[in-house]
Each structure stands twice: as structure tokens, then as C-alpha cells.
């Protein structure tokens, strides 16, 4: 049994974790010692029982009560050996949300299951509720101790593997839109749940449509309380943005700083690097990327000294200009070669992929236009636009399809 607490030094924590991993993890075969092959559930159960899944949570909630800094030591030790399961208190959105806003029985029954299983999928967006997420129309109708769910969700990652989804539903149609929403922890593996991969513009299929027809979820699986789902959802979305932000800053550290930028190399290959017009465009594109990096470094500094930084909200918007801009320059560099695609035309295939993939940033997670509204209202304190649908019962709000 591991004995660690807030008074443990970095050295002590490192020693305990390393010793535990030595005893339990076979780094060579990448599975539990003696298991022969990797079994996610049984490995995660071992990590969970040792408290390493969620080290920053209190002991009564399956953690070790450590600080973020102490937890990072554990995370590092795991990642050095390519062992899964640590830092779920930073990345398991479903578990984090239940831990923060779930009822006591929900925490007791679901946290052990969720922490030792695949991550949850997010059943938020619908064909008619994208930027306007509070306009969800997936129905949840009470039936004894359960609710019966009917509706369609879209843009769901990991829907095939997920055992649970965090589901936004409409439970009251006679009140304004934010007040009739209920948030559920929804079991995915049941009849009435059909997952269909989406063929995305890039040719990838990371996302799915989820069709729900008369599927069931227990009333005890409500996250927060009935019709107050929008409030609990705010917690989930805030953690999602935090995780995405951390991803941005952590990935940055891993790029090679001294290598020549792709655009320069492509221009050289195409024999166009001496063209002064092209040079100006490439320079400006590289500058936009470098400036965004400098802004994010300032954001990190501000977060360390003040706990928050409004600069963080600019990164996503800046990234749209960067990605669409770089793809446009690269397309022009290729000229008619960009008409081709496939393995025999690697440059063209990459450029065409990047040009399409840029929309992932400028639409996904809120369009640039929504992001600009957010920056204007929350960072610059510009007044909100009058809402057409404020104080209108949800069933009376105009929508595009009905």
C-alpha cells in the first residue's frame, strides 16, 4: 500500500511511484507484470487501487490528496514508462465533472467504474444545436425511476469505445431554453443507441453521429439536478477548455525550434523561394505563428503570477488565421500540382488535407465568429447583443428545421 501525503517531498513521491511501477509495470511489453498482454481494465484497476489515477483528489474519493505539483511527478513517472492511467484528474472529463458536481451516490457508484474504463464521450452538439448549444432538442421523458431518451447527437469522438456519454437533454419545453435542460451520465452500451461514423471533409472519421431511440438512463445518473443541467454543463465545458488549453501549451514544448519551416522548404522544392511576393507572404505566415507562440508564453507567465490570463482566449482565433493562411500559401506554391492527391503526390495530398483540416480549428469547439463574440464580451466587456430567445418558452423559439 502506498503511503503518500501532502508533506511528502518530490524525492519521496518519485521513489514510491518508481518502486510501484517497477513492481507492477512491464515497460518492455507495455503491460502489467506477468500479464503477457495489455488489458486496459485490469491495468487501470491496479492504478486506481494505488490512488495514482487521481492523485490530487482526496483519499475518500480514490485519490491521495496531493497537490498539482506533486501529482505532476507521478504523471511524469508514468509517461516515462508509457504506462496509462495516471492524471485522470486532469484529463478524464466525465470523471472530473462527476467529482465536481455529481451527487454523493453518483460519485460512489460511478467514479470507480469510470476511472477504470475508457474515457466518456460527449453527447452535446446536435444537427440543430451547434454554436447555440442551449438549443438541444434531444428528449428525456421520465418513466418510473428512469428517463427515456430520444434524439440525435453529432460530432461525438470516441463514441464507439465509450461506455458512458455525458448527455445534454431537454426536459422542460415550456420554459426559456437554459432552464429546461438536464445533464445525464448516459450508458452507451444498450439497445436504442446507434453510432455512425461521419466521413469528414478531410477523409478522416474521428467523429460520429449518435442516434438515440427510446434508450434508458436512471434518474440517479442526473449530473447536478433536473432542469439545472446548463449549470453543471458549464463545469464540464470549462474543464474541456482548460484541457484543450493545456494541450496547446504542452505540445508547444515538443516542436523542434531550429528546423526550417515547412513553407520555406516547400517553396524551395517548387523553385519559387526567390519570388519576392511569395517571400513576403511566407514571412507573414511564419510571423503569425511565432506571434501566437509569444502570446501563449505571455499567457503562461500571467497564469503563473495571476492565476488566469485573457490572452488564452486569443489562441484559438489566431490559430484559424495561421492554419487557413498557411494552407492557402502552400496551395498557391503548388499551382496545378495541387489538383492531384494520393500517395503519388505527397505534397499535394498534404496541402489539400491541411486546407480542409483548418476548418477543424475555425469551426470546431465554437466557430471563430462565436469566439470573437466571447472575446468581445468577456475580455473587452462590450455589451451583449439582445437575445431573441430570452424569456421565450423553448417550444416557441424559431428554429431552422421545424
Amino acid at each position, binding site marked *: 500500500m502506498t503511503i503518500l501525503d501532502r508533506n511528502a517531498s518530490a524525492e519521496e513521491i518519485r521513489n514510491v511511484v518508481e518502486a510501484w511501477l517497477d513492481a507492477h509495470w512491464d515497460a518492455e511489453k507495455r503491460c502489467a507484470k506477468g500479464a503477457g498482454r495489455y488489458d486496459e481494465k485490469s491495468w487501470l484497476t491496479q492504478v486506481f487501487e494505488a490512488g495514482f489515477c487521481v492523485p490530487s483528489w482526496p483519499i475518500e474519493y480514490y485519490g491521495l490528496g496531493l497537490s498539482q505539483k506533486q501529482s505532476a511527478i507521478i504523471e511524469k513517472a508514468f509517461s516515462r514508462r508509457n504506462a496509462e492511467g495516471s492524471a485522470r484528474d486532469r484529463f478524464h472529463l466525465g470523471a472530473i465533472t462527476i467529482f465536481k458536481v455529481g451527487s454523493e451516490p453518483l460519485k460512489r457508484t460511478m467514479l470507480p467504474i469510470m476511472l477504470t474504463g475508457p474515457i466518456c464521450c460527449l453527447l452535446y452538439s446536435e444537427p440543430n444545436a451547434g454554436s447555440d448549444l442551449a438549443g438541444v432538442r434531444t428528449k428525456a421523458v421520465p418513466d418510473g425511476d428512469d428517463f427515456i431518451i430520444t434524439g440525435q447527437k453529432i460530432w461525438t469522438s470516441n463514441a464507439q469505445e465509450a461506455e458512458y456519454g455525458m448527455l445534454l437533454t431537454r426536459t422542460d419545453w415550456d420554459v426559456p431554453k437554459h432552464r429546461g435542460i438536464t445533464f445525464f451520465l448516459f450508458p452507451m452500451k444498450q439497445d436504442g443507441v446507434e453510432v455512425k461514423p461521419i466521413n469528414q471533409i478531410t477523409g478522416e472519421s474521428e467523429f460520429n453521429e449518435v442516434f438515440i431511440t427510446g434508450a434508458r438512463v436512471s434518474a440517479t445518473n442526473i449530473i447536478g439536478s433536473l432542469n439545472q443541467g446548463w449549470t453543471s454543463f458549464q463545469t464540464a465545458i470549462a474543464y474541456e477548455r482548460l484541457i484543450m488549453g493545456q494541450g496547446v501549451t504542452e505540445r508547444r514544448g515538443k516542436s523542434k525550434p531550429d528546423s526550417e519551416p515547412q513553407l520555406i522548404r516547400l517553396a524551395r522544392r517548387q523553385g519559387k523561394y526567390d519570388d519576392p511576393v511569395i*517571400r513576403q507572404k511566407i*514571412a507573414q505566415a511564419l510571423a503569425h505563428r511565432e*506571434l501566437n507562440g*509569444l502570446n501563449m508564453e505571455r499567457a503562461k507567465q500571467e497564469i503563473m503570477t495571476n492565476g488566469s490570463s485573457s490572452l488564452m482566449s486569443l489562441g484559438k*482565433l489566431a490559430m484559424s488565421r495561421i492554419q487557413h493562411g498557411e494552407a492557402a500559401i502552400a496551395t498557391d506554391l503548388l499551382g496545378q500540382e495541387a489538383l492531384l492527391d494520393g500517395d503519388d503526390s505527397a505534397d499535394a495530398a498534404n496541402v489539400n488535407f491541411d486546407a480542409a483540416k483548418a476548418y477543424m480549428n475555425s469551426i470546431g469547439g465554437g466557430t471563430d465568429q462565436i469566439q470573437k*463574440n466571447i472575446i468581445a464580451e468577456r475580455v*473587452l466587456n462590450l455589451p451583449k*447583443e439582445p437575445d431573441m430567445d430570452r424569456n421565450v418558452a423553448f417550444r416557441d423559439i424559431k428554429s431552422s428545421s421545424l
Partner: protein
Amino acid sequence: MSQISDEDRQALRDGFARYLEAEADEKKLRSAIANDRGYDEAIWQQMAEMGLLGIAIAEDSGGVGGGAIDVALVMEEIGKKLLPVPFLSTCVVAADMISRFGSEAIQQDLLPKIAAGELVISTGGSGDFVPLSDHDLSLSAKSSAADWTLNGQVSFVSHAGNADYHLLGLQEDGVDSAYLVKASDAVSKDRLITNDPAQRLFKLHLSDARAIKLEVLDADGIGQVRMRAIAALAAEQAGAMRAIFEITMDYLRTRYQFGRPIGSFQAIKHMAAELLVEVESATSAALAAAKALDANSPDAAKFVSLAAFTCKDAFRTVSAQAIQMHGGIAYTQEHIAHLYWRRARAGLPLFGSSDAHREQYLKSREAA
């Protein structure tokens, strides 16, 4: 490297900002630019009092031994208030040139006076350290023994009006030389009419004007002077654009049309959000350039060119959009927006165009 501690730096900046907030209002700015001198002497003397005029001068020459970062913080505050003071030419370019290339005697004579606010130095001519090169200058230097005399004409000389010395560059076949010419009867001045009423440009006529030649101008040293001046200019522009941006945001919250603040319209909000990216990127670029210079980073030249075109272009965009977002009221001379816009335009050719700096930046991103 800066000799100033982090706390002292913060205190210096806060003190200057507080002073300007109280003393440097729009009325003073307008009366300063309407008079011949072009700036408020009381503010200039207060800057001397606070140690700011000697910010880039070594302690043993009467300064406070600050680095590029300290100069940047002063310039940001100057930019916010559009102070039309001869700081860049006197305290950045001339002070740096004299510190690097002046004889011991000249250093001990002039540097303490710059720090004390007793000396204004204009800059002009040709060469990499000169903010505005005169491409048609007809200036010639001749020497007899140790004495140099200059003859001819030079235009685009900044702040020559009440300057005590003119620092004139003469670049021939890529070789820089620099002369300090004392204001005297041998130098006559015509003030040029400028688009930015706060800018002071002159054409000088020199006839047998005696000059001190600064010796041993090595290219590296000149390059350092140039980079430090560019970083200073970028910081001034970053400060100025932030100020006009904030003035504009205030207006968007308080100006009502159609029964609602105009800042509630998405067309306006989206412009504002885009401009915030420009303002923050410019601030980051100016800061990165100053830090790289103080750290003697091998990336210093890269960050300086990045800051140069980023801040010039962003200041132009932000100040131009500020007029647009204000609407009719900013299509007047009474409103302050046009003064920021004119300052932005006046900054475009200083130390070379944005396009030239973009080209430099690209070169620094190529594989070695």
C-alpha cells in the same frame, strides 16, 4: 544587460505612468505640438528628474544603466500618451552612439547632460543608425588635422528645432561614419511641413560647420544601435496602439444608436476581437525583441525584425480601424484618433519599411 532590478523597473514604470496620467493630458499635447519646440519642456524635465532620460546611459556616465527592456517600458508609456518628446533621437540613438563610439572626453561631457535633460540631439543623414535617411543628401565632410567641417544640405533631420547637437550619419560605399555638429550660425534650419503635426522634421544647411567625428564605427556596434532603436520604436507603437484601442473600446460601450450601445453589434465586436489579437501580438513582439537584446540572444535580430513590421503594421491597422469604429466624430481634428493614426503613419518608414523587415525576418528563419 540591464542594471536595474525587477522591482525598481516596476516602480520606475508605475511612477512614470502615474505622472503622465496626472500631467500629460490631451490639452497639453495639443498645445505642445502647436508651439515651435514641439514638446512640453516641463514633462521633459520631469523625465530627467525621474532618471528616464539616462535610462540607457551607464551609471558612471550619469545614467541608470538600464537595458533594452527598460527603454521599452519608457517608450510604451511615451506611446500611450503620444508624447512628442525627442527621446528616441536623444536618449536612445544618440546616447547609444556616443556611449559606443565617442571619445572618453565626449562621453564625460555629453552623456551626463543628456541624462540631466540639458541636451537635445537630433538625428539625420544616412546610415543604419539613422531613423530617417535622406536619400538626396548633398553632405560632405573634410578634415584638416583633427578638425572636421561639414558642408551641404541634409533633409529629414528629426528634432533639429531646439537641438544642441545634430548627430549626422554619412554612409559611403556601405561604410558608416557619424558626426556631431554643434548648433551654431554655421547650421541653418528649415522646418518641414509634416503630415503628423507632432513630428518635427528639418532640412539643415551646413556651411563649414565644425564637427566631431565619432571614431571606429564597427558594423556590429552600429547594428546594435539600430536594433535597440528599432525595439524602442516597436515598444512605443505597442503602447500607442493599446491606448487608442482602449479609447475606442470605451466609446463602444457608451455610444448608443438604435437604442443600444454600438459595441453590442457583432459587426463591431468582431472588429474589436481581431484588433485585440493585433494589440497583444504587437506587445508580445516588442517585449520579445527587448528581452532577446538584453540576453544577447542569437535570435535577437530575428525578434527585432519581427517586432519592427508587426508593430508598424498593427499600429497602422488599429489606429485606422479606431477612426472607422468611432464613425463621424473621428473624422475631425477635435477628436484624438487622428493624432494616433498620423503617428502610426509617421512611423512606417522609420529604420526601413515593414516589407524590408519582413524580408529580414524570413532570412533569419532559413536553415543556417
